[in-house]
């Protein structure tokens, strides 16, 4: 089936003439129409625009002038990335009808590479959550068990890639939002170094932590997608002017002699024993491939979560202040004055989790509390970063589980703190700005995916991809596909939002 093929194989078939972008786009669109009513990964499907883009890509192949490895490849992006003339909701009622007049830099770069944009993917509202249950519109299902969550906040992106509803996707990761859903859905999830990919057009949640990255069917695809979007952007002053190496070319160098650190602090109490076993097995695989493992210590890990839940909400409270009903997005009518308009609009437009974090963040930044909360959290952040720096004096790579548990049931984690604990192993990586790669590393007895997290030095994405690729070649996990097709009856098939909008 064409939709099962990874990006690099699709590209090979396009070049060889065994498939055309048009038929692949059509196959994906048909699959979305048939199966997405069960998975509910998409908030918006840009059907007409996708077909038109695929046709243009087909013409390029016919003329013998394809743009590169992503030309004609159907990609979808998380609905937090701005798309010109295509509604960008951030999973929120407050932006339900927001149509940006500009593309995010990553979207622009995907278009320039010839990628076909299938649509916009569901997410926790403003990327705040770990299950996609905080989407204002609907919850995306985990393709491996439709009663379970796909993780979050890039749950739509992970589920779409796992269910072959997109050849690849872009998500965003602020505290684990690419890697955790990647692990939950059995796909590759890659958060690059902070600054590696431009954030221009990424609707900000926590500006100092947000980073865009790929969700992919395998490591090679992740390399191709990152290659297309990485690099300095003059529109984002925090994007780094660091050369981007040829990621696909570096994949096959192997890991002989690589020094791999195992942090004891990442094997926490209460961790799912199946996750722990899978991680130990993965470490054994790396050893067999020639890696030299050694224990490392990241002593401030346990404080990372607390620091994160001050810094991220503080920045969010500021970033979300602009949604006030004045300029764009929702405005609740009938207010007598501007303050009432603000309160009514924000009360109706934001969900409970967003409100909780805005309040947390506002409090943390308030006069008299700043030093005790935000200031202290920043100092903890420095300590967490220093842990990694010291570890990377001795090792090239750190390996740990991506999450302590596998995908949980919808509605299972009602206590916000329980939900927050999901990100305990991914958050320190964001706090330190480092790259983190999650690759499939096995399944539980009940058939739920497990993820292995590889953490690298800043801007050393190539190393992570190389190690991830070597591991993937030595294991069968990425080959398994969820068998949900027809497992559940279609649920009405009606989208709460019109499924298409605009021309991309």
């Amino acid at each position, binding site marked *: 089936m064409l939709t099962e093929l990874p990006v690099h194989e699709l590209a090979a078939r396009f070049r060889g003439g065994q498939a055309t972008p048009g038929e692949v786009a059509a196959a994906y669109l048909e699959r979305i129409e048939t199966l997405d009513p069960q998975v509910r990964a998409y908030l918006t499907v840009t059907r007409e625009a996708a077909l038109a883009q695929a046709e243009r890509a087909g013409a390029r192949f016919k003329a013998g002038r394809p743009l590169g490895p992503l030309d004609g490849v159907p990609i979808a992006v998380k609905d937090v990335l701005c798309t010109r003339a295509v509604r*960008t909701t951030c999973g929120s009622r407050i932006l339900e009808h927001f149509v940006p007049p500009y593309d995010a830099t990553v979207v622009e770069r995907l278009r320039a590479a010839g990628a076909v944009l299938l649509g916009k993917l569901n997410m926790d509202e403003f990327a705040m959550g770990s299950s996609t249950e905080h989407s204002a519109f609907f919850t995306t299902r985990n393709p491996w068990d439709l009663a379970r969550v796909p993780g979050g906040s890039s749950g739509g992106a992970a589920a779409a890639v796992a269910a072959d509803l997109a050849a690849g996707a872009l998500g965003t990761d602020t505290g684990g939002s690419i890697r955790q859903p990647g692990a939950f859905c059995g796909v590759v999830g890659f958060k690059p170094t902070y600054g590696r990919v431009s954030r221009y*057009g990424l609707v900000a949640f926590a*500006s100092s932590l947000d980073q865009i990255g790929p969700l992919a069917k395998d490591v090679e695809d992740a390399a191709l997608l990152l290659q297309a979007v990485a690099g300095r952007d*003059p529109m984002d*002053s925090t994007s780094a002017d660091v050369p981007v190496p040829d990621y696909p070319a570096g994949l096959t160098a192997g890991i002989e002699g690589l020094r791999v650190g195992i942090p004891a602090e990442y094997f926490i109490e209460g961790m799912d024993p199946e996750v722990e076993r899978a991680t130990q097995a993965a470490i054994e695989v790396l050893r067999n491939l020639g890696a030299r493992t050694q224990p490392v210590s990241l002593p401030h890990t346990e404080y990372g979560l607390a620091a994160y839940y001050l810094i991220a909400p*503080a920045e969010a*409270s500021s970033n979300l202040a602009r949604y006030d009903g004045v300029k764009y997005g929702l405005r609740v009518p009938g207010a007598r004055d*501007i303050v009432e308009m603000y309160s009514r609009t924000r009360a109706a437009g934001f969900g409970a989790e967003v409100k909780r974090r805005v309040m947390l963040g506002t409090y943390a*930044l308030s006069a008299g509390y700043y030093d005790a909360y935000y200031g202290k959290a920043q100092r903890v952040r420095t300590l967490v970063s220093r842990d990694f720096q010291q570890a990377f004096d001795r090792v090239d790579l750190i390996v740990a589980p991506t999450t302590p548990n596998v995908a949980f049931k919808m509605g299972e984690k009602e206590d916000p703190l329980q939900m927050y604990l999901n990100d305990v192993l991914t958050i320190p990586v964001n706090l330190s700005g480092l790259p983190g790669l999650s690759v499939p590393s096995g399944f539980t007895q009940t058939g739920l995916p497990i993820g292995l997290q590889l953490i690298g030095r800043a801007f050393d994405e190539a190393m992570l991809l190389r190690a991830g690729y070597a591991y993937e070649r030595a294991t069968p996990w990425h080959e398994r596909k969820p068998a949900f097709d027809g497992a559940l009856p279609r649920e009405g098939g009606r989208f709460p939002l019109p499924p298409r909008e605009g021309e991309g």
Partner: protein
Amino acid sequence: MSAADRYEAVIGLEVHAQLQTASKMFCGCGTRFGAAPNSQTCPVCQGMPGTLPVINRRAVEFGIRTALALSCTVNADNRFARKHYYYPDMPKNYQISQYEEPLAEHGHLAIEVSGASRQIRIQRLHLEEDVGKLLHEGNLETAQSSHVDFNRSGVPLMEIVSRPDLRSPEEASVYLRALRAILIYLQVCDGNMEEGSLRCDANVSLRLRGNRELGTKVEIKNMNSFRHVQHALEHEVHRQAQTLERGERIVQETRLWDPDRNHTVSMRSKEFAHDYRYFPEPDLPPLQVDPRWVEALRASLPELPAARRRRVMETYGLTVHEADLLTQGRGLADYFEEAARGYPRPKIVANWVLNELLRELPGDDDRAVAACPIPPRSLRGLIGLIDDGTISGKIAKDVFEKMYRSGEDPASIVRREGLTQVADTDELGTVVDRVLAEHGKVVEDWRNGKKQALGFLVGQVMKATQGKASPAVVNALLAEKLPKG
């Protein structure tokens, strides 16, 4: 001792200057004043989701130049910060400003008040973005709808905060003028208070003379001209003195100057003061200023108003007042020096600039001076025509006016209009004879000792020659022809 004399005013000014950069502080939009609403906006300055700021290097340069002119220390590492409050003219509901790590600190500006020099310390200088403008349909209180124009949103602003070193409304006014002159000399701000490119807030408190402790301060806003600043501060000092004299306490608050009613009204008290929740702007890395850049900018600073005033006074032998007026703008000072170059009697040139040119245009407005229809060379030419006797000083004033209207050079005007002075003794002798004959009574008066009668006779000769007669020749002829006592 009157109430006012018992107290000493303690005033600090916060000045906001719009920088004359071509583009905005954090995006590429234009900054022209008066453009159609929202025509100079983009997703960044409209605060749209996902957009990011990029620092305008030119604005930083303007900030550094000003900082150096005010003898500030430029911080090699400085940061932008977000200042939060909700207001519909501010698209992000936070303003990107600078807080703990401003661009520059610890400067000073010398001012002269009643002949004495005073050093006013500058606490800090920082950069920030301006907000948009609200347009209400009707009165603010009853308006059914309001509109926002974001053209001004994101225009670079420089905030210059003085220490509370000013001791009277007059000093405050002098400080503000001196600061404005520097901004104009540096060509970083046009200094127009009415258009809002220069804005001033004041912190005012009173204390008993001789006391060192500071009193409770009140912030005064909405002073849109020099006159407003002086009036508002005088009013506030008076209000506080009266309050204290009644034995009441000053409330820490913000008050708005109402120029129509000539008083201040309370806007908000301390209890309702904003908590701006400042924190470092995560979308911008710390701004690192290369010391070599600072040194290059220091080397390229123009001569500043105080230095130029002194030099102009000494070089051209002018009074303080004349030098002050001539150097009120960089353009005017350039104009004067150009016109006076190589001329042996610069005082004459100064008089022409001060008495004639400044009647036509505002001397502190560089753009107006640059657009002056009379180039400095032509003014010198006009003075030369007086010196060589071609025209009289009186005619020269008419020629000046004609030059200003038409932009023509003086010689052409004099030639075309036949304004050349008549110095011919025979020709003027005839006129003098006729005037003496027609005014026998006046001649009689003169002979009887009424010396002012001579002036009348000179006037008559001038009138008869349409002012073209050489006054020297006329005087000599009259002296010769009038009957001797």
